[in-house]
């Protein structure tokens, strides 16, 4: 059995890696598959990256970052 935590860690690492490279979340679309998150960067190539975030913990994670950046 794949631990659900490991699936979360995999998704979190992808999110963190993009953020680390200077991408910011610019669009989120939630659907039956989870969340499609579009990251953009003004200068990098490509200027957009798309992640499908499936696990509940990772969907919670990126939205916490967004909420926190608004309320900070």
């Amino acid at each position, binding site marked *: 059995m794949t*631990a659900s*935590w490991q699936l979360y860690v995999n998704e979190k690492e992808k999110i963190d890696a993009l953020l680390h490279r200077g991408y910011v979340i610019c669009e989120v679309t939630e659907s039956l598959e989870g969340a499609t998150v579009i990251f953009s960067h003004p200068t990098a190539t490509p200027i957009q990256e798309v992640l499908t975030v499936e696990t509940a913990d990772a969907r*919670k994670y990126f*939205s*916490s970052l967004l909420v926190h950046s608004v309320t900070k």
Partner: protein
Amino acid sequence: MADLRTNLAGITSPNPFWLASAPPTNSGYQVQRAFEAGWGGAVWKTLGEPIINTSARFAAISFQGKKVAGFNNIELITDRPLDVNLKEIYETKKRFPHHAIIASLMVEPKQEKWHEIVKRVEDVGVDGLELNFGCPHGMAERGMGAASGQQPDLVQAQTTWAKEVAKTPVIVKLTPNITDITVTARAAVNGGADAISMINTINSLMGVDLDSWQTVPSVAGKGAHGGYCGPAVKPIALNMVAECARHPAIAVPISGIGGVGTWQDAVEFMLMGATGVQVCTAAMHHGFSIVEDMIDGLNNYLEEKGLASVSELIGKSVANYSEWGNLDLNYRTVASINTDVCIHCNKCHIACEDTSHQCIERKIALDGTPFLHVREEDCVGCNLCSIVCPEPGAIDMITLPYEQPPMTWNERQTVLATYKGK
């Protein structure tokens, strides 16, 4: 001794423990004995046109050795003439002037019927009135009780009619047989109710006999739905009290009813907004003397908490009750198994493996002893293992430090709305 006196919309009583309108308050003999035992108030068995009851009226569910976990009845309102009841109310009030006697009333939804009965019962000196809009069987088939209590317009109209002539406070007793009790509670308030009480009994069929295939209870081979009450209904009643208490348009006192049998139950209802409680099933199961423990326990609790008066409890937990959308999604609790206390029954492992998140592993220590281990990172903090664990203290639910700042679903959705694709 803490001050246990209560004041519900002007109705005062020596303590918050009242008997609910039901068999324990059927007669002056019973209510007087109840007051001698220590009950602070009694809501008299509902008065109205005297009815005829069936024989075979009650049934109960026993659950794993605990008798009367839930109780069911198909009894109607009083079967005694109004004059007889009024005479006994008068005599009881004379003997116990400082105890609360509330007359429970049920008549057809007609203005003149309400005017007549309110005037007649107030003439004998009751302290208040409780309008029974809740009886779910029999009376409801005749357009009274729950039938009129499920229609907000009828709740409001009948409350208004009672209030047109009432000189004493009017409590409206609500039925739980409705999707949203705050709707009928608001109707009562709009009709001028001085207080509301809840809950009356919940529609129920207690069971079917496996040999005879007849309902339980069975009246000559036939059954009809009854009203459910007792310990099993407490969470339903507590929620309904709390929903009304936190509703800004329902700013009247609440009398809490449903599954109260101990002082702890009473405290919970009061913390969730009730000014006092009413008891039926527990008194039917154990007798009037249970009130002694309730009074002692409440008094000790108040002293331990450093509270001078029971009124200081009212509504103190209401602000802690909210919508799901206001709960913090980043709060984390996980199971922690105390190996020293664990009896290795494996119930937690089975529950988690079969029906939750597969995070409790069975392991063997180096010395060969079996033990259970929680993989914290996979534990969602559902509480199931600690609920099924038969050994007190074997599983604690512990709070983990925050990894992300608090965030509610409502906050999340508000922010995410600004990130929506075009």
